[in-house]
């Protein structure tokens, strides 16, 4: 075991730090409304892009920085430590659409689509979830019927981030109605300016509209916009999903550490029963437990990184990490609400810390529901890691 960094890694860290210092406004505060965030992130991510930080994990041949895993971690860590904004508007392009096109696209598609992602000339969204395809993603019903040289797309997607500002959509749809559920799916690269696409903002539990529903009505997509091969959508989708949890785990930990530090300072200044929450029997031990859980997230992350470096993929610790941190976050956010006392009854600017505990608590449900709900995670862990027998049909066996 060795937790030290090499001289090269330390130099890289200094480079990142220097760049952040030069580019992040010193008084930067995370914008609170979605619209403000969008505006800020456009400018900020352009900057990243211009300085070559946008696709640090992308291979050099595709314009990326080809950073090592450790460099990626260091980059994300430093961004998190500086409380710099996370990649936002270009997230789908950089982390989902880009890698999927790079791995499964034709050479032509790579040349056409990858550079504008890196340069932020084209923003992407992804069309995955549907009202009836949540945990059961293979149940996608949006259909794309092939007619000579084009597909005609009809259907509805939900939870599509950035659909109203995106130029392209990585769309999972059914191209074969007769094949088995997960075999008739394909990926289309859809120009969001095409007629027949109607993105509607979807107000979420916090009252903000970060997501969209997207309705497709006789939307025409040229045949050459099929990604890779017909009927391979399910396989490709698993690539996309596997990129959704990147090497950003350790950086997330630092961001949650920022949250915990906020929580502790709230606890020090909020009286319960006449004493600060840090000294109240109920809260003192819970704060310490939250602290411990957060530290352990870091250790899990260190193990994951080591596994990825050794074997190209996380080990057992990786399969449980989402379950671990998503519930950790829920507890931490709920503790935040509790610590702020009667202010928990307020919201927005009237609540403590501009309502960040209320928003964080509500958003924490996204962690245990989206990208494989906790129930699905437990199915996967018990069957694939522990080798327990399948008793109920809950997913196609072929899901990777």
């Amino acid at each position, binding site marked *: 075991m060795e937790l030290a960094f090499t001289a090269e890694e330390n130099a890289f860290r200094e480079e990142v730090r220097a760049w952040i210092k030069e580019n992040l406004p010193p008084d930067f505060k995370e914008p609170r409304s979605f619209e403000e965030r969008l505006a800020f992130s456009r400018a900020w991510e352009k900057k990243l892009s211009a300085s070559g930080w946008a696709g640090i994990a992308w291979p050099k041949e595709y314009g990326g920085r080809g950073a090592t895993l450790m460099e990626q971690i260091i980059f994300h860590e430093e961004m998190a430590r500086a409380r710099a904004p996370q990649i936002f508007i270009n997230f789908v392009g950089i982390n989902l659409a880009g890698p999927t096109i790079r791995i499964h696209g034709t050479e032509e598609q790579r040349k056409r689509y990858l550079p504008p992602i890196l340069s932020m000339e084209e923003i992407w969204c992804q069309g995955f*979830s549907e009202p009836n395809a949540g945990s059961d993603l293979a149940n996608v019903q949006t259909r794309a019927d092939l007619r000579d040289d084009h597909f005609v797309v009809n259907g509805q997607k939900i939870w599509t981030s950035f659909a109203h500002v995106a130029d392209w959509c990585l769309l999972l749809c059914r191209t074969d109605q007769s094949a088995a559920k997960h075999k008739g799916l394909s990926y289309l690269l859809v120009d969001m300016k095409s007629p027949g696409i109607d993105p509607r903002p979807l107000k979420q539990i916090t009252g903000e509209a970060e997501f969209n529903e997207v309705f497709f009505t006789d939307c025409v997509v040229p045949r050459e916009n099929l990604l890779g091969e017909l009927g391979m959508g399910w396989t490709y989708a698993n690539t996309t999903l596997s990129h959704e949890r990147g090497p950003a785990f350790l950086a997330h930990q630092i961001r949650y550490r920022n949250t915990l530090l906020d929580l502790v300072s709230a606890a020090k200044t909020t009286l319960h029963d006449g004493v600060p929450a840090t000294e109240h029997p109920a*809260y003192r031990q819970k704060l310490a437990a939250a602290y411990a859980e957060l530290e352990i997230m870091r250790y899990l992350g260190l193990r994951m990184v080591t596994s990825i470096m050794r074997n190209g993929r996380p080990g057992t610790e990786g399969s449980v990490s989402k379950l671990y941190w998503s519930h950790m976050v829920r507890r931490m956010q709920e503790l935040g609400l509790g610590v702020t006392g009667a202010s928990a009854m307020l919201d927005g600017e009237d609540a403590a810390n501009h309502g960040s505990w209320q928003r964080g608590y509500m958003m924490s449900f996204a962690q245990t529901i989206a990208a494989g709900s906790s129930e699905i995670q437990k199915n996967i862990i018990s069957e694939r890691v522990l080798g327990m027998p399948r008793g109920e*049909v809950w997913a196609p066996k072929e899901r990777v």
Partner: protein
Amino acid sequence: MEFDFTPEQYTLRDEARRFLEAQCPPSHVREFIDDETGWSRDLWKRMADLGWMGLAFPEDLGGLGQSFGDVTLLLGELGRAVAPVPFLASLCAGQVVFRHGSVEQQRRWLPSVASGERIATIVIVTPDAAVVNASASGDGWVLKGETGPILDAPAADMFVVAAHDGEGARWFVAEEGVRVTPQLGFDRTRTIGRVAFDGAAAEPLSVGGLEPGSRVAVAAVCAEMVGVAQKILDTTVEYSKVREQFGRPIGSFQAIKHKCAEMLTELEASRSAAFYAGWSVDGDADDAALAVAVAKSYCSEALAHLAGEGVQIHGGIAFTWEHDMHLYLRRIKSDEALFGDAAFHRERIARLAGL
């Protein structure tokens, strides 16, 4: 011995549920959720016509002379409907006047509260402590200080205030000169706000101390929470029967079934505790102080957990603003913090039990 409501009381509950389903469907609730100071005056009038605000006040004070127990069932139904009315606040304030006021004070204030004409609120944060100071001024008293957030302060025209009179905490009533600043509530279905007294005239209620009045408030919020939680469980079970994933209703998966069974356990335990707390404050039982602390500590934690599970089982759909689940979740989480959270009431239990 009979520890349950009578069939007549349950009939009243069922009627209330039907009334609210018709008069206060989610679409009605949603008329007010974007408005910090909005609440349903229409619904309030209809409730007044039914005599709900007077249910637990004696007939000679303009009420219907029923027990506080009847009101707890009603509170549950209003919770179930997340009704956008200042019922809980006004009820608690009225009950404090009833329990701490002289006959004259009761006669002066309660008939209009019981008729719904006057809306009162109770100005308190935790049930054991004064929130502002009272000082003698001429013939009377004046209040000074600022506190909040206070439930339904923006809707109220009478304030029953836990104030320190120099010797101890006691209840005062203030009607004029109270400055209310509306705030955005986490629970969007009710109003809430800061309350400031800058020398507002106030009159002390004749019976000193904050208890048993403040106990009634704690019991009331527990009763409401149980109604909200019942709605969450009902909604969740129904949804699990119709929502299909992997070709089967999700309610047929053991993981979902077991979660629902645990939710029912939390709910029935909470209901028992809320019943008992309501009964104990009604007759001022020996263990009333303990009973309300037991109920509020348990309901706060168990029902917040239940509400979270309700959202989790619904999955993505509950994550939308359009779905009603978050209205219930917000109500439960707000009630959790109202009049002392689980930690506060466990500390009360510890003291009462001599730990």
